[in-house]
């Protein structure tokens, strides 16, 4: 196995992981919420992208927009159903409801898109570059570039703008935020819409790498969980580093040890890190 090729794979995979996880990071950091339907939003958005390209004949960039819009709608519907639970911060019920939503989304995807695996071909998949004797596709480059831009933008918005301040206020004390005149309900809706949009964007970019099936999404939610916890819950910069680290680790482990045990090894790393550093690798501060 070529080390450079595995490193490139790892970097691409790492950015994909970070992008897949970022919605959950913000969801946890700002609203202290979880979404176990996260993986199924990924799956549904992958199908929507494929369908927009294959059935509607839309250009790939427009299809990405359609998938993101679908992600926003799913996020808003989920939050509308769970608003009371959200205000009560009833995490156990939210976990169960989001799991239920995930199953429903899988059923809907089966009904609408059928049970056959689909392949999303994009114009970028066909363009390849040679880097130090190894190959990388334009699709892979797009994942890396979009992930970096997305994280930078999010970091700036959360750190510099009044939006970030509002987010930190709601994260610290939603009740007190009401007294500062903040419509906490709207913030919760916005955060869930962002979660849906972010994972849909990730799906539209990452799904061309693998066949699209109704039962994908489970691995994505597991990876997200590992990234969010390793990165320090709610930490944007931490999630980026954790995603990247996990991607490189998975690629190297898969390349030099065994791809079959890569996810298991990732969990082992998670357990070891949590035993040594319970707050994750980054210093966990909401939305930083």
């Amino acid at each position, binding site marked *: 196995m070529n080390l450079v090729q595995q490193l490139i794979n790892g970097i691409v995979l790492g950015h994909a992981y970070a992008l897949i996880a970022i919605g959950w990071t913000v969801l946890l950091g700002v609203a202290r919420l979880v979404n176990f339907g996260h993986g199924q939003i990924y799956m549904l958005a992958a199908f929507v992208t494929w369908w927009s390209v294959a059935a509607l004949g839309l250009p790939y960039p427009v299809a990405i927009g359609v998938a993101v819009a679908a992600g926003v709608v799913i996020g808003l519907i989920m939050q509308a159903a769970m608003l009371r639970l959200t205000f009560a911060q009833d995490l156990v019920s939210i976990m169960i409801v989001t799991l239920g939503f995930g199953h429903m989304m899988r059923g809907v995807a089966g009904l609408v898109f059928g049970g056959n695996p689909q392949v999303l071909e994009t114009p970028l998949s066909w363009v390849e570059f040679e880097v130090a004797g190894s190959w990388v596709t334009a699709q892979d480059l797009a994942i890396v570039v979009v992930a970096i831009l997305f994280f930078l933008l999010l970091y700036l918005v959360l750190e510099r703008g*009044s939006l970030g*301040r509002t987010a930190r206020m709601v994260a610290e004390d939603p009740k007190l935020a009401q007294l500062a005149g903040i419509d906490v309900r709207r913030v919760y809706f916005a955060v869930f819409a962002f979660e849906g949009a972010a994972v849909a964007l990730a799906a539209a970019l990452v799904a061309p790498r693998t066949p699209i099936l109704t039962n994908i999404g489970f691995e994505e939610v597991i990876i997200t969980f590992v990234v969010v916890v390793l990165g320090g819950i709610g930490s944007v910069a931490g999630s980026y580093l954790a995603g990247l680290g996990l991607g490189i680790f998975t690629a190297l482990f898969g390349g030099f040890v065994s791809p079959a045990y890569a996810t298991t090894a990732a969990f082992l790393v998670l357990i070891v890190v949590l035993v040594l550093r319970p707050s994750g690798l980054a210093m966990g501060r909401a939305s930083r």
Partner: protein
Amino acid sequence: MSPVLEARNLRVAYGGNLALDIPHLALKPGELVGVVGANGAGKSTLVNALLGWSRGTPSVSGSIRLDGEEIGHLPPHARVARGLTLVPEGGAVFMRLTVEDNLAAAQAPRGSNRRAHDEAEIYALFPRLKERLHHHASMLSGGERQMLAIARALRLGPRALLLDEPSIGLAPRLVADVLRTVRDLVDEKLSVLLVEQNVRAAIEVVDRLVLLERGRILASGPAAAMRDDPRILAAYLGEAAA
């Protein structure tokens, strides 16, 4: 003069138990009304209910009017936007935000013609906050947090301010300072409903006093007249005994 804030038949219940029953309560423009009473008398329940705000889940009924407009059906943030502001007990501020961010986070809605304190006025009122501008609120003393909480409320341009025990946990000299500041604000035409357990300190600054007991108004009247009211004296004694 029509009241700035008026409550009628205000009732608050926790799980079927009536915690507050106020047939009528009014706050006139530029008036400082003190709400006193023992622990558990319903003082905090009253101011929280006026804003529709609570850490628990009480059921609240009755009419609440701000400048004659019914606001009882509105969520807390919408009441804040209309000019009713609450500083809850214990100087509640955002600990992980700097003093500057705590203040910047509170702003009167655009286009409103209410008078909000600008930064210069806030620093003139609380010079200490200017010195601590870039500190996280978690690093402030109890008194400084209380100042920050009041300052934040003033930035929202309140028509009426609800203050829940601003003196709690403060050194006696600071209590006098805080209450004097509140009095100065009222003299500048702000209307304030002040919840205070320290009856002795409150009676020195308020215009009117409302004595609560078990969720009901036991007595109310001008501070000067209430000074010798045996029920207020009992409240004094209660304080002395406690």
